[in-house]
């Protein structure tokens, strides 16, 4: 079942991509969306069947498609293109293909009439194919390959309207910033390959092998992998590309730059959990980076006037939340991070598509100061956008609430509860899972069948953890991790407050107040067509219900992922303090936003005055804390200057002085002294001849003597 189904999932989008590429320009034209929708839809159906197949099957499976590369010798390399099917990958697949299908349907309306219509669907299908292959990778190199491939699709789709200079520049920027991350990623892959002699997850995630490896190597490798994840998932300091990526068509922003591709970093780190579990300090680093990015992006989002940019910074911020979850060092945090990934995909895709719907109606204008009161014009978009905003702001019982709550709880535990971050806790985690798992899924784990023969994976994990626990942990400058986690917890709570505020600021600015429509919209500002609103409604259902359906109340999500990451479903008591805090934060954020932007009586002038009173802080936030400018000053410009300098030196020093000089040497040493002799005076030649003959004669006589 799994073996027949799994290859179909990437195959359909690939076929769709090839069909639109070949037939798009001449045959399909305006129908180019059909192969994409059918292909991605079919892939979605297969993914959902696969979820149930995996749930019913005791073992994860790895299918080798073909051997990509095999080189023997001293540094042997063995890489195959294969599909690794386990509960983690199919969860991602189900989410990814579902959202991709909806986005493809939506785009058939949104992109209607664009001259690059077929190109859009070709590239989207290629993206979905690459993303599926990324998720299904069973080795790091394949993951890296498709990691780059989704980067290519991102580049092409950001620069979709290539004639717009900003779009072309944004595409390049996205690719380059990602390349910086990939630099680290590649190093990490090399390090792991060097340490374990393989790039297959089966080998490098084997707890026993990990326990026996040099922890310094693993720490270094993990740090490198994080760099890659920070690039793709737009974490500070590599977050700068994501807001610019909004130059791409909005469906692309929803699919690639909110729901799926940007979460690849989170997925990769989750996949490598066994590695991270043995290096708690690196986890702390992940948490700090995540927490910092979350609040930084939230602060920037407060003052942006471009609706899509608000959402983009919100994405950066929410991704930071996921990193924070992963970095708490507990299985609860990882579960929370992964779960937030899924719920966020729904409500953020919803919000982006809603923003696209607004943009569609407003004739491409997305500046929130230029329109308002759209709730009367676009009631369906209004309603669904409200659902998305509530979910993002963390309204209790909606999906965002559950996942954010899990992350906050994990951070809280790491900060205030004993033994949660301390290393022996992992052993306890493992044991807990062992007890939990014996009944339902005894022999499964993330090794293959023959591994299970030697020892139960859960036991192996706890064994490895115990071994790690014996080691002296390395600490950043003697910092107590609990203190750091305390700070992070409160920072996260503050971020949640800011999130609720900026989300509803955008919401009120767009949909409430007096109806104002920009000139670009013409006279036909209207609700979007059904092809666009239906996906919005479907996503709304997800944004409302998915958290409660899969999250804490039922435990389905954790239970399912537990098969891949043992210990994930360990039961945790509800942390009522965190729940209460979430509720307060949500109310406060939305309330303040309403007071400032929602009430008809609040004149924008008051708000402006309030922001003015904050002065520099507002300006800094509005200008994204000048990070782009700093990078330009620190890296781009100096490199540019160095490049120009090299160009000059290459011409001056190397070519003219060095090469030119050496090439003139023979002439200088031999030619120049000899030249005066060729003076053209016959008398001189005669004299020289006579003298030379004389010398010769003397020499001969001398010799004969």
């Amino acid at each position, binding site marked *: 079942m799994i073996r027949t189904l799994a290859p179909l999932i990437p195959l359909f989008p690939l076929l769709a991509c090839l069909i639109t590429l070949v037939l798009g320009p001449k045959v399909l034209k305006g129908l180019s969306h059909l192969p994409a929708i059918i292909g991605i839809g079919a892939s979605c159906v297969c993914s959902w069947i696969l979820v149930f197949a995996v749930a019913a099957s005791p073992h994860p499976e790895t299918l080798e498609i073909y051997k990509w590369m095999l080189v023997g010798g001293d540094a042997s390399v063995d890489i195959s293109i294969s599909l690794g099917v386990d509960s983690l990958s199919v969860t991602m697949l189900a989410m990814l293909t579902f959202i991709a299908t909806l986005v493809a349907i939506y785009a058939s309306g949104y992109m209607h009439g664009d*001259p690059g219509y077929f190109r859009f669907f070709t590239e989207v299908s290629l993206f979905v194919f690459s993303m599926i292959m990324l998720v299904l990778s069973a080795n790091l190199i394949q993951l890296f390959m498709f990691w780059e491939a989704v980067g290519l699709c991102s580049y092409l789709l950001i620069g979709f309207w290539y004639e717009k200079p900003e779009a072309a520049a944004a595409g390049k920027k996205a690719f380059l910033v990602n*390349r910086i991350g990939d630099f680290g990623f590649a190093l990490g892959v*090399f390090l792991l390959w060097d340490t374990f002699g393989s790039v297959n997850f089966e080998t490098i995630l084997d707890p026993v092998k990990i326990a026996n490896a040099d922890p310094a190597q693993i720490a270094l490798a993990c740090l490198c992998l994080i760099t890659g994840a920070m690039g793709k998932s737009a974490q500070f300091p590599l977050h700068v590309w994501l807001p610019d990526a909004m130059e791409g068509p909005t469906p692309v922003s929803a699919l690639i730059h909110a729901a799926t591709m940007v979460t690849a970093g989170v997925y990769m780190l989750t996949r490598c959990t066994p590695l991270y579990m043995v290096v708690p300090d690196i986890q702390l680093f992940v948490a700090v980076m995540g927490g910092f990015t979350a609040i930084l992006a939230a602060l920037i989002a407060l003052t942006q006037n471009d609706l899509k940019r608000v959402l983009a910074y919100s994405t950066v911020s929410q991704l930071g939340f996921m990193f924070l979850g992963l970095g708490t060092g507990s299985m609860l945090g990882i579960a929370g991070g992964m779960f937030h990934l899924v719920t966020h995909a729904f409500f953020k895709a919803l919000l982006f598509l809603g923003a696209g719907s607004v943009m569609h109606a407003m004739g491409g204008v997305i500046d929130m100061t230029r329109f308002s009161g759209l709730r009367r014009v676009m009631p369906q978009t209004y309603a669904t956008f409200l659902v998305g905003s509530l979910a993002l702001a963390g309204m209790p019982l909606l999906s965002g609430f559950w996942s954010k709550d899990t992350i906050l709880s994990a951070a809280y535990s790491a900060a205030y509860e004993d033994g949660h971050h301390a290393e022996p806790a992992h052993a306890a985690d493992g044991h807990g899972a062992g007890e939990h798992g014996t009944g339902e899924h005894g022999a499964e784990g993330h090794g293959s069948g023959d591994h299970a023969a030697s020892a139960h994976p859960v036991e192996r994990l706890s064994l490895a953890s115990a071994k790690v626990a014996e080691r002296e942990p390395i600490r950043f400058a003697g910092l107590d991790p609990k203190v750091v986690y305390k700070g992070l917890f409160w920072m996260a709570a503050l971020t949640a407050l800011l999130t609720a505020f900026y989300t509803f600021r955008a919401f009120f600015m767009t949909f409430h107040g007096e109806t104002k429509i920009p000139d670009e919209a013409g006279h036909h500002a209207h609700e979007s067509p059904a092809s666009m609103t239906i996906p919005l409604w479907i996503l709304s259902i997800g944004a409302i219900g998915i958290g409660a359906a899969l999250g804490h109340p039922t435990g389905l999500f954790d239970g399912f992922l537990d098969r891949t990451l043992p210990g994930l479903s360990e039961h945790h008591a509800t942390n009522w303090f965190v729940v209460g805090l979430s509720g307060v934060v949500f109310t406060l954020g939305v309330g303040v936003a309403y007071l400032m932007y929602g009430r008809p009586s609040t004149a924008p002038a008051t708000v402006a005055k309030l922001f003015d009173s904050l002065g520099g802080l507002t300006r800094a936030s509005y200008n994204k804390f000048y990070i782009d400018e700093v990078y330009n000053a620190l890296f781009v410009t100096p490199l540019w200057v160095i490049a120009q300098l090299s160009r000059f030196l290459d011409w001056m020093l190397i070519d003219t002085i060095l090469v030119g000089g050496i090439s003139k040497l023979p002439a200088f040493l031999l030619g120049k002294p000899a030249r005066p002799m060729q003076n053209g005076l016959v008398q001189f030649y005669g004299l020289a001849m006579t003298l030379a003959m004389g010398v010769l004669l003397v020499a001969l006589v001398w010799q004969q003597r």
Partner: protein
Amino acid sequence: MTQVLLILVLLPLAGAGLTWFLGRTNPERARALTLVNTLLSLALCVQMVLAYDPGLKSGSEPQVLQMVVSYPWLGGGGDGPDIRFSLGVDGISLWMIALTGLLMVTSVLVSWTAVTENPAAYYSLMLLLQAGLVGVFAAQDIILFYLFFEFTLIPLFFMIGIWGGHDRRWAARKFFIYTFAGSVLTFLGLLFIVLSHQTMSAQPGQPLTFNIPKLVADITQLTAPANRANYEYWEQVGPWIFLALFAGFAIKVPLFPFHTWLPLAHVEAPTAGSVLLAGVLLKIGSYGFLRFALPMVPEACWTMLPWVAWLSLIGIIYGALLALAQDDIKKLVAYSSVSHMGFCMLGLFAFNTTGMAGGVLQMINHGLSTGALFAIVGLLYERYHTRDIEAYGGMTRKFPVMAFFFVTVIFSSIGLPGLNGFTGELLALMGMFKADRLYAMFALTGIILGAWYSLWLVQRTFFGKFREPIVEHAYHAAPGAPTTAAAHSHGGEHGAGHGHGASHGGHDDHGHGGHGHAAPRGPVGDPSIGDLNVRELFAVVPLVACMFWIGLAPQYVLDRITPSLAPIEKRMQDTRQAALEMRAKRVEVAANGAEAAGQAGSDVALVGWKQSQKD
């Protein structure tokens, strides 16, 4: 089949004569003859690749050198020199010859209308160049190798000097003198190897052999640590031989700081000259290192490893920075070659199969990518007669098909997975990482810079606002090529019927209209200038197909490369082992109070090995 190499050398030679005599009066006949000739060669190359058996064994040893032909040529008999006309291919030269065959067809097709001045001479020279290139890679005799090695300079010298750009004479002279000066030293080094081989073997009455495989095998045995005297002699002269070889090969590659002839030659060369120069000629340098330096003076290679590695690293980064600063498309691509060949050298100097396979792959890949890049840039130049990046903008709108291929080729050269560049860079870097992490780490920064200058080039030329250079002489009106007007009026019907019969690599002809551009909105800009026509597609599509092939399924190529590298890896590792043992022995001797002769020298030699001793 055994004669295929001989035919591959003789066919272009004969073709050159034929083209010259039959084509002088009729330029169309000249290029048609050349095209037929190169297509025949390409077919033979394919035949050769298919006939090459990577699993062939003689006895229990794998037989990597195949299709050998050998005729007595100069000398022979007695104890005089025995110079033979012997050709053969192993898994490395196999691909270099195939690459030559492929790029020749592209070169002819891109010159089709661009060369109007004395085409018969031009195409004859191109065919002569092909004969030389095939000969270099197939030669199994040192004299023959050197003959072909120098012979390749002459046709290219004339191609640049006569059909080149504004500064062609200076460029041709510099190219010739620079590369020639280096290769004279290389020749000395090669002769020294031959002579000392005779001295060391100390078997009177034996003819002086120039046979490369025999020399490699003999020297391996003769300089084994068991022969203490020979071993120490080789230890002493090795670095000097290496330096002599280095002089010629490093200039050819080109390694920093011997690269300055390259941009000039590229910029001034006609398109076909650039394609062949970047595509094949540069590989002679890295091929030379792999064929001579590594197996013959392995110990010196270990000694020199840090030097070569750092020069390669500087080349990677410095080349990329220079590429970034250019405003001339061809110069940009030329400097990117410096950067890419750095990866190649780094891979070769990892001294393990993985790295060397990456280096060889990188040689092929660079040939394909840069060859294709020069071809497309040449086609653009043919249309507008300017290489100034600033003159272009948003060309995608006008040339969607060209944009598709340009972007694809750019991504191949950036090293995007799924295309060829990635496989080579990955293996080279992995191999180097195993050998020395530091080098690999520095080299990795090159991929960031590489993406920067490449994508920036795309952004400035094919993306952004549409900007068309002002054309003084529309290319279709070029004198001396009456047939082209018809061909291009066809191309001028924007988007109509491109790519008839251009199906290749799974793409249908419609596919080329496909990717990375807007649908036709009527002609843009100068209506007399159109997108790629069928002939131009035939020039580019095979290269792009090969890029996908090597990117998606490199194993076929690797299966043929790696058996030829395994002995070199063994040789390199054995040498390191032997040197370490020797050192231990010497330390022992020194500890016993005896004079440890030459220890200082061997200490230097061991700097590189320490790194690899970690594991």
